């Protein structure tokens, strides 16, 4: 996959990006490690969280069924979408039904995964990303390069030039001034929008609510002001109970940004009730499969569905630190992307992603739910070495495999080994 190598090379020779990535890891990577230590239960809470997540994933059918019942009881509508096309179709249908003209979006990886924006725009709907980083990336017609810091690859000077051009403000490069210019521009979008689209950090089966986290307040805006709210979640993002939420939200905030709790956490359990003057009047929850059930079916990879997309693994990964997010060439980058992307989009197609990681184990140590990413990277490599019919994986190189087979055959017998050694001496004297 040449793009991986090309993009990686580009990133490595970009000194500004290198400095930004180093700074990011220094701040967020170390911040998360320190934040785990201040947990009242200690950093071992991550092991408990891993168990909670695995138990949820192992009973996903029961949880999703309960979730759907609760959401509908609270007055929301639940849509099960088996793939990107179904999810995008449902979203367009909802927009059409309510005569939507302008959408404000909260940051959501899953909407990137299904390519939602382009379809809505094609329907003549104005779609505005409202997380500041996402907004910058959207204005520049680029893609996010980090799960929680999407515009980490852009400098203040670039953003100053971009805002001068797109927002018609005088050029400046001071972060507060630029942030407040976006605050003003986006406020108009929030006030005019008739639909808010958000992701979902974690749903709760027993209550039927979804928890959505932000620091900027854009998610609160998008769920409070427009009359329609559509939330889209990967089907694995559900926990059983509020007790589980307590553990997972504290770990998510720590893993993502070293915070004890994200600045804003909205627990949305349905549309507004009689007598309320804000909040959506129509609330839809779209639950997406899009290849996840295939991962669920394979015991080797089921564990990756525990991921709560905090980005902690990006903030410690020595490979991500050098090549940045764009080289991964997909919505999900970093160590988690190196596992998820091949499984969602094709192992052969995205083979460089799992081959490029170092297996150093930093991601496992940083993960708030202690997912063994290196183990799964090895599984993927083994699939590439041997081929795997269940995932339609072709063997990476027959020649390489044959070489290793001969080597292993020779190593298993002293006479064969010595014969081989003599032969090699003859060939390479």
């Amino acid at each position: 996959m040449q793009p991986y190598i090309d993009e990686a090379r580009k990133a490595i020779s970009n000194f500004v990006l290198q400095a930004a990535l180093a700074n990011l890891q220094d701040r967020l990577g170390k911040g998360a490690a320190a934040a785990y230590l201040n947990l009242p239960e200690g950093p071992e809470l991550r092991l408990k969280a891993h168990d909670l997540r695995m138990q949820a994933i192992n009973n996903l059918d029961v949880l999703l069924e309960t979730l759907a019942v609760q959401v509908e009881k609270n007055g929301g509508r639940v849509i099960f979408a088996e793939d990107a096309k179904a999810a995008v179709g449902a979203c367009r249908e909802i927009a059409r039904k309510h005569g939507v003209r302008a959408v404000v979006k909260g940051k959501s990886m899953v909407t990137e995964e299904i390519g939602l924006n382009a379809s809505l725009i094609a329907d003549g709907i104005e779609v505005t990303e409202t997380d500041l980083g996402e907004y910058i990336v959207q204005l520049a017609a680029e893609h996010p390069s980090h799960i929680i810091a999407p515009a980490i690859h852009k400098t203040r000077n670039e953003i100053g030039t971009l805002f001068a051009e797109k927002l018609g403000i005088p050029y400046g490069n001071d972060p507060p001034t630029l942030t407040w210019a976006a605050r003003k521009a986006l406020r108009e979008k929030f006030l005019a929008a008739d639909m808010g689209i958000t992701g979902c950090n974690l749903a709760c089966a027993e209550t039927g609510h979804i928890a959505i986290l932000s620091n900027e307040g854009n998610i609160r805006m998008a769920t409070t002001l427009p009359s329609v709210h559509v939330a889209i979640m990967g089907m694995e993002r559900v926990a059983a109970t509020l007790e589980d939420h307590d553990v997972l939200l504290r770990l998510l905030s720590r893993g993502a940004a070293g915070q004890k709790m994200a600045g804003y956490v909205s627990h949305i359990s349905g549309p507004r009730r009689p007598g309320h003057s804000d909040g959506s009047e129509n609330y839809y929850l779209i639950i997406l499969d899009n290849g996840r059930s295939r991962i669920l079916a394979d015991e080797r990879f089921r564990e990756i569905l525990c991921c709560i997309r905090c980005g902690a693994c990006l903030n410690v990964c020595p490979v991500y630190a050098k090549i940045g997010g764009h080289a991964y060439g997909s919505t999900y980058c970093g160590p988690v992307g190196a596992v998820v992307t091949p499984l969602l989009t094709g192992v052969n197609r995205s083979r460089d992603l799992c081959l490029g990681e170092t297996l150093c184990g930093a991601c496992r140590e940083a993960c708030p739910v202690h997912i063994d990413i290196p183990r799964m990277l090895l599984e993927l490599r083994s699939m590439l070495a041997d081929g795997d019919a269940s995932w339609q994986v072709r063997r990476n190189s027959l020649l390489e495999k044959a070489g290793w087979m001969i080597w292993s055959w020779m190593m298993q017998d002293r006479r064969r080994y010595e014969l081989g050694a003599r032969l090699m001496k003859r060939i390479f004297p």
Partner: protein
Amino acid sequence: MNPEHISNQSTFLRKIRTALGQPAANGRNFYDLFSGARIESSVLLNRIKSRSAVDRKLLLDRLIHEGNPLNLKVVPVPTAADTAQAIAELARDRSPEWSDARSLVAWRHPLIDSLNLSERLKSQGIPVYMPDPDLADPGLFRLRAQTALIGVTSADYCIAESASLVLKTRPGQPRMVSLLPSIHVAVITEDRMIESLKECYALVKWGPDAEKEGLTCCMTLISGPSKTADIEAVMVHGAHGPREMIIYVISGA
């Protein structure tokens, strides 16, 4: 629910069951699988109920300490009158952002009502708007909220360990009051203090009002003013929501 919708759901769930190697629910029931926390929660509820004034003072100290790095100001005040005085001074000293004139929006809430803000601010010529109880003109209140300098709310709980306010949504207590104005002021009494998110969820799930109300359609945790670090990792307050936040804790002493 239309029939197509039901069939989508059952196909979707069947696929998951196949993936799990569980052709049917196999007697796995949500409440058997996941309802073990009642005993721990009742311990928590007892702890909350039996908390002494001294304990609450410690929680308040912790709140002040945790709020500090978040740029969340926590101000203990003896009485409601002192709180009203502090809010009046704040309204006088801060410059409006979304309008030329200063104005406030506030929740309809017994504690907020007891501050008599309208009366207190009349001499300064600053109006205080509250949501209309019968929602005669909801658009008008939204307009008030989006041009207001300060939004005044109370809160259901205040979590010390993470300096988080917990706000449920009820008639007369819209979410926009803590969101659209430039400054969010929350006024609580000291007995709203709890220690942890765990305690908050125990109250929401098992507490005295849980049956009646639960989470409400939106329960929000707020831990400080709106912020972003998306431009070169420089922390800036006031990304979309309030750029400043103050909690007044009435100690009653």
